[in-house]
């Protein structure tokens, strides 16, 4: 029998089939999530389908994170609809201030290695870092999942990505994933799963690995899978009571392609406006002044990200022409930041903290840039208008790059600020 990829194994085991890339399966879901931008439509679809009950409410969570707390009455109406629905059907609701769905879901122990998970949010691929086949779907698929506990999938081909070498000083996991997206472009992995590994990945913390899997969708991928190691198992056991079932790829598994990236000489990477694949090494970026910095999101709003930024900003003040917004990805992260002094350091440097959640990433609240302004952000998207103003320009980089840029008032190489 032919060898299998991680994606082929997880989709086979959850559909009780022996499936390979290209096959269509109907699979049992271990968990599913929605957020405030997508769950309103999912509730409409659920009602239109004439459903009266949910297959298993314990396998569902809805997280109010994208526009939270509500900035206007239109959003408030959607939030109320979500609260009412969750209450009626006994679904776990993480309301305003709990954090971003893609931090909450693994952090609160809802998903463990080997699981099959869907989310009505494109960055659901984040949990691939802990060996979960998780993928973004639309609201009506979410409704169908809630009703039946299942979803149909086309088993994807897999693109294998191997990161070789040791991470240079001042270079972080964000730079690794931006490099890949720049190389293969925004549709380089459409309809495929990524399987990401290599010694550079093993050296990363679990927090840092989430950053990479989170952005798998930015090259079109359906999932951003990694294998488990002791670091992942320790992390999962700290956060979840569920039993993990790690899945490893077979040696003879068939891949659509294998890409090797040597990172020994890699520089910090920047994605320039207005596409995520418009990536340049920082030394090739023309002088770019910035008015706003943002550290947060499901990509880079974790404790380690803020610690890296705090190390650069400690005892210094951000440039008087800049404002730095920070949004911890969850309330637990916020509490950890308070406990270890990171929060104080960042506020002392001049940072402005907003509610745990998506922050200004999606352009609905918390820091819409002005016309003509450049923003340097740790988010995953720099589309025109993404932060709420079509006449602003979003650059993406690591938390270290954002912190360094805030000191200089222009996009700056963090290697000059790290000993």
């Amino acid at each position, binding site marked *: 029998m032919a060898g299998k990829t991680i994606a082929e194994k997880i989709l086979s085991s959850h559909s009780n089939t022996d499936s390979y890339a290209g096959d*269509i399966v*109907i699979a049992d879901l271990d968990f599913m999530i929605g957020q*405030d*931008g*997508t769950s*309103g*439509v999912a509730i409409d*679809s659920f009602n*239109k*389908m*004439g*459903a009266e009950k949910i297959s298993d409410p314990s396998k569902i969570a809805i997280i109010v994170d*994208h*526009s939270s707390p509500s900035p*206007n009455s*239109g*959003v408030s*109406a*959607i939030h109320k609809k979500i609260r009412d629905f969750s209450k009626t059907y006994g679904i776990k609701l993480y309301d305003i201030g709990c954090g971003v769905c893609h931090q909450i879901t693994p952090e609160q122990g809802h998903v463990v290695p080997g699981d099959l998970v869907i989310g*009505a*949010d*494109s960055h*659901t691929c984040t949990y691939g870092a802990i060996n979960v086949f998780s993928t*973004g*779907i*639309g*609201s*009506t*698929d979410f*409704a*169908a999942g809630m*009703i*039946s506990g*299942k*979803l*149909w999938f*086309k088993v994807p081909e897999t693109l294998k990505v191997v990161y070789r070498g040791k991470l240079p000083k001042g270079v972080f996991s964000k730079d690794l994933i931006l490099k890949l997206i720049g190389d293969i472009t*925004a*549709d380089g992995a*459409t*309809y495929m799963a990524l399987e990401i590994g290599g010694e550079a990945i093993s050296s990363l913390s679990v927090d840092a690995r989430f950053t990479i899997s989170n952005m798998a*969708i930015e090259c*079109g991928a*359906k999932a951003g899978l990694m294998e488990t190691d002791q670091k992942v198992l320790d992390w999962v056991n700290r956060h979840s009571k569920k039993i993990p079932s790690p899945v490893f790829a077979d040696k003879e598994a068939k891949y659509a392609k294998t890409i090797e990236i040597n990172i020994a000489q890699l520089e910090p990477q920047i994605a320039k406006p207005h*596409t995520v694949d418009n990536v340049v090494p920082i030394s090739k970026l023309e002088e770019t002044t910035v008015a706003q910095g943002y550290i947060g999101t499901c990509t880079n709003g974790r404790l380690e990200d803020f610690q890296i930024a705090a190390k650069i900003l400690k005892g210094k003040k951000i440039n008087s022409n800049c404002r730095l917004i920070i949004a911890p990805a969850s309330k637990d992260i916020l509490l950890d930041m308070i406990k270890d002094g990171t929060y104080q350091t960042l506020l002392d440097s001049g940072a402005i903290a907003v509610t745990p959640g998506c922050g200004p990433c*999606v*352009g*609905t609240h918390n820091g819409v840039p002005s016309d003509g302004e450049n923003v340097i952000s740790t988010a995953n*998207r720099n*589309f*025109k*208008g*993404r932060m*709420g103003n*079509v006449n602003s320009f979003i650059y993406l980089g690591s938390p270290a790059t954002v912190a360094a840029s805030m000191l200089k008032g222009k996009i700056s190489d963090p290697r000059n600020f790290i000993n």
Partner: protein
Amino acid sequence: MNLTGKARVPKTRDDINTDYIISGRYKFKIQDPNELAKHVMEDLDPQFYSRVQKGDFLVAGRNFGCGSSREQAPQAIKYAGLQAVLAKSFARIFYRNCFNLGILAIECDTDKIEEEDELGIDIDQGIIKNKTKNVGIKIAPLPKTMQILLSDGGLIEHFKKHGGFKIS
């Protein structure tokens, strides 16, 4: 199935993301799809909605619908009156969302289609006739699952009819 209508081509053809199709500024607060539709493609091509007439086809390039999973994107296209989307390739979630809403998404070479061109689409024969330019364009065959969802009128109707997934 035979369809006819005019081509509507946004100003930029490739990598049109769902933020461009419907901005977060609107999708988070407007629940009425007819209202949302008025903002379709606004950040990319502010005049787009005013050019659309009922029954037109949206025509784009590579990687159409990349980015966010928002179902409001295909919803806005549908309620703007566009009857199908033609692109060289589609992002995965958007493609799936289209058929879930009963919207036809066709993969084909769109280089030979321009704004206002009169198109005739024969799904069964797998061909688009560009009547304005007098050229034929081949269509990639529709996957079986998508044909089933489309003929049922989308996933909501599919679930009402079968009480679950019946896709093979």
